[in-house]
Structures are given as C-alpha cells and as structure tokens.
C-alpha cells in the first residue's frame, strides 16, 4: 500500500517536472485543449441563457382576440359570456379600439396617431390570460376562440417563444454534437502528445522494462500527464469562457439599461465548471492510455 502510494507520488512528481521542463510545449497543448473545449462550452452557455429568457417570457400565457370590424356590443356581450364559461380562462380584459390606439400612439411617442392615420385601423380586442401555460392547451383554447362568432382572429402571444424554444432545442443538439466531436479531438490531442513523449523517452522505457518495470509502472507517468493536460485544458476553457462572458456582459448591461432592464448573461456555474474539468481530465487520461497501450503492445511483441 505504502509502496503504491510512493510510486504514484513519484510518477506525479516526474510528470510535473517534465511539464515544467518544456513549458512552451505544455502551454501550447493546454491552450489547444482549452480552445477546443471553450467552443461547445460557450455555445452551451448562450443556448442556456436564451432558454432562460424564453422560459421567463412564457410566464404570462396570453391570448389576444381581435373582433371583426362590424362587431357590436351584442357580439361583445356574447363573447364575455363564453369567456366566463371556460374554466381555462383566468381573467380577461376588454380593450376598445380607441384605447388601443391611444396606447399605441403613447408607446410610439406620437401625440395623435388618429390625426395621422385619419381613421383608427385597430379592432376591438379581448386580452385573455389563461390558467395554464401548457402550450398544447393554450393552442386548443386559441383554436376554439378562433371559431367563435364575431371573432376575426385569436393570437397566442407566446407563439414566438414556442418558435424560439424549437430553435433552442436545435441549438442544444448542436452543442452536444459539437461537444462530442471536440471531446474526440481532445482525446486525439492527448493521444498524440503522449505518443510523441513516449517516442522521445523510448530508451528510458526500454531500460525500465529490462530492470523489471511492470506495464502499469511504465504507463503511470503518461496517464498522469494526459490527465493533467486535460485538467489544465479544462481550466483554460473555463477561463476563456468566463472572460468572454464577462466582456460580453459589459455590452449586455449597456443594452439592458437602454431598455430599463437589469439583465446579465449567466456565466459558467461551479457545478458545470467542475464537470468540464472532470470530463477533460478523463478524456486526456483515455488518450494517454491508448497511446501508452499501443506502445507497450508494440514493444511487447518484440520481446
């Protein structure tokens, strides 16, 4: 047990010394891994942030019912009765066309929109808030309303959010695809750097074998090297993404303040960051194992 600990510590020390012996090569490898990882990581964060925006905007499940031009007060009362009947409807508000126009001209900063337009183009409308934000139920309700007499059209205000959601799912898929590809690339980078180092230290491996070293002993420093490279690469990716988001957030804060919003993009959470470190270390280890195994098998066949 104590021997094993001694051996692992010796292998780790040896590995760190070797990395420090070739600082530039180590740095470059770490950066390659870091940049490769930061691409899917950054994309993941962007998609995640957009997802949060979409989720927040869906908080108010609203349907707007626009009435036909010629709809009179009888139609309006009929619709109010129907709305009262539906259990899915939480509350509703009638918005007369004049009020809608006033609001529009206020929002657009026009003193008198009616004067410019000549005639009010807006219809009377109901704004209905539903009990339930479930998109399918909302859509069913909207279709029912669409068929009511005197209704020109019923629009789900959260439709754009649903579309955004579909795009986000696409984005998430792209993230995973990219992550898988770059994960593979990471293992390949690990494999190649370790293979080069093994070739450079061929004599030492050969001598060690003659002196009674087991495969595990020979492999050990390379496994540590692959793992450490992965770990440092993961750390580099974390740093890159965190700095990029800090920079972007300066602009986001500026834009948000123009809209009177207090909004910032979420950067990488501790949990996600540690997961990145762990997976990078594991991938580096795998690459190193494959390289070492390939070499040992080749050398084993010769003897």
């Amino acid at each position, binding site marked *: 047990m*104590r021997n094993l600990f001694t051996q692992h510590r010796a292998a780790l020390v040896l590995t760190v010394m070797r990395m420090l012996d070739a600082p530039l090569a180590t740095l470059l490898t770490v950066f390659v891994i870091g940049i490769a990882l930061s691409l899917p990581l950054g994309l993941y964060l962007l998609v995640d942030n957009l997802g949060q925006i979409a989720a927040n905007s869906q908080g108010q499940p609203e349907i707007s019912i626009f009435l036909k031009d010629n709809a009179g007060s009888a139609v309006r009362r009929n619709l109010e009765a129907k709305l009262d009947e539906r259990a899915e409807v939480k509350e509703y508000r009638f918005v007369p066309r004049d009020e809608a126009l006033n609001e529009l001209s206020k929002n657009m900063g026009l003193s008198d929109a009616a004067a410019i337009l000549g005639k009010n183009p807006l219809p009377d409308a109901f704004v209905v808030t539903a009990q339930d934000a479930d998109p399918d139920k909302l859509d069913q309700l909207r279709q029912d309303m669409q068929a009511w007499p005197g209704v020109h059209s019923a629009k789900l205000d959260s439709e754009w959010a649903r579309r955004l959601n579909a795009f986000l799912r696409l984005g998430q898929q792209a993230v995973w695809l990219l992550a898988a590809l770059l994960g593979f690339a990471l293992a390949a980078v690990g494999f190649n750097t370790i293979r080069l180092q093994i070739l450079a230290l061929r*004599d030492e491996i050969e*001598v060690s074998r003659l*002196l*009674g070293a*087991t495969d595990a*002993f020979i492999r050990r420093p390379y496994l540590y090297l692959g793992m450490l490279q992965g770990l440092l690469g993961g750390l580099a990716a974390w740093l890159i993404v965190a700095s990029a988001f800090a920079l972007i957030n300066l602009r986001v804060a500026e834009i948000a303040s123009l809209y009177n919003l207090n909004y910032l993009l979420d950067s990488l959470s501790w949990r996600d960051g540690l997961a990145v470190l762990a997976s990078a270390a594991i991938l580096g280890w795998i690459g190193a194992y494959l390289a070492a195994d390939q070499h040992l098998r080749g050398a084993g066949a010769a*003897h």
Partner: protein
Amino acid sequence: MITFSQVTKRYRGGTEALKDLSFTIESGEMVVLTGPSGAGKTTLLKLVAAIERPTQGSVLVHGQNVGALTRGAVPYLRRNIGMVFQEGRLLFDRNVFENVVLPLRIIGMPQREAAKRVRAALDKVGLLEKEKARPVTLSGGEQQRLAIARAIVNRPAILIADEPTGNLDPDYAQQLMDMFVAFNQVGVTLLLATHDPNLATHSTSRVLHLRGGALQA
C-alpha cells in the same frame, strides 16, 4: 539456479543462435562465457532474462520456466536478475544517482531507504563522489561501473553481464573483474560473457566456451 535443457534458439529468418544447449549453473557459482562474437553469448544471456524465449527446450531460473512466463510475470523475474549490458544502456538525461535509483523506484522502495541503497552501491563501485554527475561526463570505465552499480543496487541473486569490459584497457578490465569476483564472494551467482580469453584465464571461475551456438569442452 540456472538450468538450460536442450535449448535451441532460432531467430526469425532462420539463423540458429543456440543449438541443443544443456548446462546448469549452481547458486553462488561464477561462470565466464567465452567465445568469438556471433557464438551466441548474448542470446544465451537474453534467454536467462526472458528478453528472448527459447524456440525449443526449457530455461529454468529459480525453478521457474522462463520461456513459459506470462507477460505480467516477466518483470518480477527481472527484479531478481541484475543486468550489465554491452552498450551500458544508461539514461543520459539523468545524473548518476537517478540512474542507479531507477530499479528501486520500479519496486516502489521508499525514498530514504532507496537513497541509502544507492549510496552503498555507488560506494562499492567507487563512484560515491560522482552521484550528481551526468553520465556523459564519466569515462568509459566509470560508465561501466555506473551500469554495474545499477545492476547490483537491488541486491539481485543473479548478476549477468555482457562484455562488461568491452572497450576498456586491460588494467581497467582487470579492476572490473576483481569487482565481480568480490560480488561473487558475497554469494551472488555470476554469469559473464566476454570474448577476451585473458579474462577467463585470470579468474578462478568455471568457463563455458561457446562456438557456433554449441558448448565446447
């Protein structure tokens, strides 16, 4: 300790390095293997350390059939055999101490104990003051002594050496031979291969003369 029974070694391509070879080396013996180059001396030593495996026959070391060892068992056999190679096989990117400590690192000996053993081994070969030196800065004789220190640091029961006095002048060669005799006197089984007939006659050891892969009386 070491028993060859009807051992034949044929290399790929058909070269027959050893032909139907049988002999036994007892524990504590000192055996000098002589013969011209190409007689099969190096092959014989390689069979003892499982660097090569016999094509026919069996090689027993410590009662183990070396030719039948699994890949995983070979390292444990080698830990009991100190080896000095013709070409030294030193690691030139490490200092003298680091070269000698390698076998102890391999068996996972704690640092402090290992350092003591390394200094004892260096003392025996007269290189104690050079422990920080790089092998390149050593003379040929010193390099060979360094290789010997590395071979004995783990206190193996068997020491095999392939032309340990290869490129050294006669005085120096004799010094090394005296050193080997001293190891043998403390109980190490020795198997030395050399093409230098003078060395064989100098020592009190048993001589095996190899020619064309077969033993000669």
